[in-house]
């Protein structure tokens, strides 16, 4: 472990300074309101601060470090031009409350971004306000609630969620005040239509669905699913986590979805930042547009304005207008790729996934081994049956081979799942290398199982005691 910045503290080593003070150095704050407690932040020189964080960066692994086949996360290459764009002073150094006439370029960008999102998703209006996918889900489910409420249909207290769903879907429904009802998957990994019919009722507000689903499979009966929910008076929510697979091929709006969120940090190439910031715009069909958060950007003549006068709006889900800086990056991405480029993304994402699935299924069990979309699920069944090797062991062994492991133990409906999403930005050579590494690990699992069970061997730390961390949490540094 590197020393903590606090342990590099040297009194008076920090030489940060302000310009000479040109105004009287008075303090007009009553004594009783002033801080008494010492502020013990570290004092470190600039050079040592830079070295500290540079050292930390070397103990991290990004898409630029290597292959990152993390299922459901769409870890594609983050174009550098997008970073440049968001840092332009005209975008980075403007205050959210500036007069509209001083931010016309920013408002125009938001306006155009909304239009492009509408076209890509097949929706009528978008809000750019939500800060992440989960935040978008919450916004969308609130819109579902507002819609039923306005119609006086308040007996709808349930949200349907497939059993293959990401945890955010049920969590979101709960946070917005709904009871969650799970819909089963059938033996093909798709929504069980009979179970959906049985669970749809006049108490159901809507269904949350990803398509392709979390197994990477396209819900082939989406039209039937949509009509069951709609005929029952519910709305259809599209979790955009997996849109990368179908851009330019088909659109959630055309499948019957009423509300959609997009993950700009997955589909549109903005970096994940080690956990954020992301951006989760929410799109709706015209009949739900009145419920979108305020403000929305409108064009009046040749001027762009922020419209707050929307009485049916659910209000605000975030300060100001969302993660504008992230929106700039995604806008730049879409502009760079254009209509053909986006379709090319879907084509290659699906090709790369199927290529890996096909070749890896020689070594690993692939429970739904048929045409997939952007990702697929393997598991450790073969290796476990033989030598007790778990999915976690395989994931950790991949670290030794220099890869970021796939998503593991999700979705929950596949035992010991290994969820692989290569994305479109990988070359055949990279994929072949990965296949070889996975094949090597499969061989090791047979011949030298202990090597896999005790992995990783080459990382700066070995497997970490998570139980100890959770039983006796230490969540900050304390002076010894």
């Amino acid at each position, binding site marked *: 472990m590197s020393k903590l910045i606090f342990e590099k503290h040297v009194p008076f080593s*920090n030489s940060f300074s*302000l310009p000479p003070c040109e*105004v009287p150095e008075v*303090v007009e*704050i009553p004594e009783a*309101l*002033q*801080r008494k*407690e010492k*502020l*013990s*932040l*570290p004092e470190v020189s*600039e050079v040592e601060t830079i070295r500290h*964080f540079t050292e930390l960066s070397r*103990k991290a*692994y990004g*898409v630029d470090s290597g292959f990152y086949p993390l299922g459901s996360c769409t*870890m594609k290459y*983050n174009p550098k031009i997008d970073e440049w764009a968001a*840092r332009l002073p005209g975008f980075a150094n403007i205050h959210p*409350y*500036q007069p509209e006439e001083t931010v016309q*370029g920013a408002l125009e960008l938001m306006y155009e971004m909304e239009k*492009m999102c509408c076209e890509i998703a097949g929706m009528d209006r978008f809000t750019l306000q939500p*800060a992440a*996918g989960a935040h978008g889900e919450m916004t969308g489910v609130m819109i579902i609630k507002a819609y039923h409420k306005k119609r006086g249909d308040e007996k709808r207290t349930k949200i349907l*969620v497939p059993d293959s769903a990401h*945890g955010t879907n049920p*969590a979101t429904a*709960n946070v*917005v005040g709904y009871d969650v009802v799970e819909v089963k998957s059938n033996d093909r990994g798709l929504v069980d239509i009979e179970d959906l019919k049985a669970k749809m009722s006049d108490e159901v507000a809507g269904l949350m669905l990803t398509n392709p689903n979390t197994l990477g*499979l396209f819900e082939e009966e989406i*039209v039937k699913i949509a009509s069951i929910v709609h005929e029952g008076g519910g709305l259809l929510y599209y979790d955009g986590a997996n849109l990368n697979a179908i851009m*330019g091929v088909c659109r959630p709006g055309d499948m019957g979805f009423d509300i959609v969120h997009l993950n700009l940090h997955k589909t549109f*190439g903005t970096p994940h*930042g*080690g956990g954020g*910031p992301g951006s989760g715009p929410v799109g709706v069909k015209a009949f739900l547009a009145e419920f979108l958060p305020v403000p929305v950007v409108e064009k009046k003549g040749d001027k762009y304005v922020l419209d707050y006068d929307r009485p049916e709006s659910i209000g605000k889900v975030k300060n*100001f207008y*969302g*993660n*504008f*800086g992230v929106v700039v990056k995604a806008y730049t991405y879409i*502009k760079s*790729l*254009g*209509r053909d480029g986006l379709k090319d993304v879907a*084509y290659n994402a699906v*090709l790369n996934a199927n290529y890996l699935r096909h070749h890896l299924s020689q070594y690993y069990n692939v429970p739904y081994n048929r045409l997939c979309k952007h990702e697929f699920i393997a598991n450790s069944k073969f290796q476990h049956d033989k030598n007790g090797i778990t999915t976690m062991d395989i994931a950790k062994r991949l670290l030794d081979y220099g890869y970021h492991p796939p998503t593991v133990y999700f979705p929950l409906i596949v035992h010991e799942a290994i969820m692989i999403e290569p994305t*479109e930005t990988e070359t*055949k050579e990279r994929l072949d290398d990965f296949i070889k590494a996975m094949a090597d690990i499969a061989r090791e699992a047979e011949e030298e199982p202990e090597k896999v069970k005790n992995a990783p061997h080459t*990382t700066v730390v*070995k497997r*970490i005691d998570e139980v*100890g961390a*959770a039983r006796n*949490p*230490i969540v*900050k540094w304390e002076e010894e």
Partner: protein
Amino acid sequence: MRYTPNPPAVAEEMLKSIGLNSFEDLFADIPQEVRLNRELDLPEGLSEIEVKRHLLEKARRNITVDEYPCFLGAGAYDHFVPAAVDQILLRSEFYTAYTPYQPEISQGILQSIFEYQTMICKLTGLDVSNASMYDGGTALAEACQVAVSSKAKKIIVPDNIHPENLRILKTYALSGRFAIEVIPGKDGIIDIEAMKKAIGKGTAAVVIQQPNFYGIIEQGIEELAEAVHQNKGLLIMSVDPISLAILKSPAEYGADIAVGDGQVLGNNLSFGGPYLGFFAASEKLLRKIPGRIVGQSVDSEGKKAFVLTLQAREQHIRREKASSNICSNQALCALAAAIYLSLIGPEGLRQIALRSHQMAVYAKNELEKKGLTLKYKQPFFREFAVKMDNPSTMNKKLLENGIIGGFELDDAMMLAFTEKRTRAEIDKLVNVLGGEK
């Protein structure tokens, strides 16, 4: 410009190797009736030269706070960001990484968050901090969700918290999981007696913003802490992290949870986002707080190591029982905050807070010399409201004079000051505002 690296011949070879003939075959499972069957109605892709030109043109149509001095605050402030911050943020091991779920190859990110958490604890005086949230407003809403229980659902909020934060609280309350009771203030500050009267058995929490939306430093918060604690509710404070260098910390007031926006800690204004919300709490709430938390542990060889911990609180494990649905944190913005605080140091932060305050005091005195008066005569930190009949006309006039004015209230303008402002800029502001009289 495209980022799909396989040339057509290679793609074709790949298709063949899996027994397919064309890209179209990859989508055979998508029913015809939902196919787009046309091109997306978007322009053709652009080369990098064209994209650059296009974005520059848009960016140039915005007036930046570097071109015109900015006196806007109201939740986002034009504080100085050292050049070194962005240099580190551009280390792609940080910004192109995913959430550090694989701790063996993510010790750097985990450690930076652990350091961030420690810094937030130091600033607020509280025991524990999460790895950050979307922004100050949503962090406040999440704090309210932590406070509620089946027996206590009422959140008491004065009307002088940031109006956007209040609007967010009301939106989150659409869930029915908690109810907001807004208590009108007096003279720009909270009405302590009215708030105390509102506190009762069903009170989950009292929310206080310090300094409040008008920039005023509230007094008597300790009394409210006592009253709400007697009723087993929580005191939630929404605070400005820069102000904490010189103002009493939430812990000193007896707060159970402190939240706020961390934009001022090394993050650009960026037209409102991305920022970060920080969230700190007392030890007893550790297992109830939302979002990611980094903990210290040991590896199998006994070496000190960091790992995301207490994950059973989070949506991916708790699913429909989760009281927050948040997945992400604003890791990169939190990293900016940690770098910023390291570069500035404790004395630097104090100087920045003091200078901002002193600039504001100077401006107030100069405005008063011109016959203008403050809307509220209360102690302030770096922002205050100055009375005027038509703030929107004044803002236009300021703009004509190359100044980005303040936040408009009905009969006043809120002006904010940071260490970046100069005396000359303030004198010019005062002259324009004073000229109207």
